């Protein structure tokens, strides 16, 4: 199996996004909610000292209940933190994980942006296109788009493109006690399908449950890894 090439050049990375965005399909869905069996939640982190990217993935069912153990992969990547270019930092670690399980998965759920991105090509869209799988991106903060906060409880508001005012995602509240999160379709799923799906699996936390688990694990992993590196050196 061929490995994907990830450029280390920032300008080239933006150009790659500008080309690949042509392949994003959010009107032509292949997602079938009725036959959804398993999703894969994907969290990532990056250890700056050792230039190591981590991906933590866990499968979940249609109720958002996680199944089995986390798959953890890491890759050495020297790419700076640039908002909007997360895929070039953590993409290779994610692909290593997806190569192991992608055939069993109906949807990829990312701790990252979908089309709500300056070039319409966030992490969820990028990896979704590479594997041609339905994908959705969810984040705690909005990188791109205008919105008004939804009222607490189970509500959502539109996340709109700043220039065209077209809806590119949603700001979703799932409880009275947490701040809302932001979501947008990545690839092969429509806006409305992605919203329905997120509501189906979300729970009442600050992120949909499977994502919260991988998000926490990925951040813990990066700290543990650096502690271990310090001890051994």
């Amino acid at each position, binding site marked *: *199996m*061929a*490995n*994907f*090439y990830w450029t280390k050049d920032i300008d080239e990375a933006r*150009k*790659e996004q500008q*080309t*690949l965005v*042509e*392949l994003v399909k959010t009107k032509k869905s292949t997602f079938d909610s009725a036959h959804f069996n398993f999703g894969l939640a994907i969290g990532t982190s990056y250890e700056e000292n050792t230039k190591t990217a981590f991906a933590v993935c866990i499968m979940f069912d249609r109720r958002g209940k996680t199944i089995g153990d986390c798959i953890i992969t890491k890759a050495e990547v020297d790419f700076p933190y640039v908002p909007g270019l997360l895929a070039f930092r953590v993409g290779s670690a994610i692909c290593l994980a997806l190569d192991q399980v992608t055939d069993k998965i109906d949807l990829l759920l990312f701790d990252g942006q979908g089309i709500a991105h300056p070039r319409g090509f966030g992490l969820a869209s990028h990896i979704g*296109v*590479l594997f*041609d799988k339905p994908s959705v991106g969810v984040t705690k903060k909005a990188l791109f788009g205008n919105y008004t906060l939804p009222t607490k409880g189970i509500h959502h508001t539109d996340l709109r493109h700043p220039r065209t005012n077209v809806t590119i995602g949603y700001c979703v509240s799932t409880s009275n006690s947490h701040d809302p999160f932001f979501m947008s379709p990545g690839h092969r799923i429509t806006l409305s399908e992605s919203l329905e799906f997120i509501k189906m699996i979300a729970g009442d936390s600050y992120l949909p449950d499977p994502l919260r688990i991988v998000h926490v694990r990925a951040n813990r992993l990066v700290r543990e890894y650096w502690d271990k590196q310090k001890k051994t050196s």
Partner: protein
Amino acid sequence: MIFSIIGGASGVGKTSLLRSFSDIKQVNTGDLFQQSMSLENRDEIRKGDWSVLEGDVTKKLADISSESIRSKKDLIIDTHFAAKIYGSQYRIGLKEEYLYQLGKSILKLCVNEMLTVNVILISADPHSLLTRRRLDRSRNRELVPSDCYRDLRYNDVYSRRYLTAFRRAEKNIGMNMPGLKMGYFSVENEAFDLSEMQLISILRR
């Protein structure tokens, strides 16, 4: 005689489709470039400057074509309408001037003959191509995802220039060729059987 130039992006399934036409003489321009460059690996061609060998390859193509015409046998030229040069930029597989020369040399030999010239683009959905390239075990290089899209797009654009070059050759040859037919076809290789049938209808008319 049917003279066909069949091209498309690398991994589009061209070579697999052409296996069904093993009774027709086929020449692969990649092989000709590889021989001229004395390379062991085909993937190495696109990293270098293969343009210096275009003249040689065109001459070889003209010789092979002449031989086929003389023996009244159909010929398929298996090629890429667009190819990477210096490992980054895409350009036309053979410069239009060389295509014009090749066209002229073929047409001149068939002035009073029945000759069909086909330019056939094999294309695919970019997602399918990306998956095919990713799963291809024979590849020994990293896969640049945007190349799949660009390769398909440039092959589409440049394929039409192949036909234009041959039409220019026909125009400038200065002779009436009542037995000549030229056509452009696009075959989307999504379902192999369907694509094969489409190719049969073109190549075995």
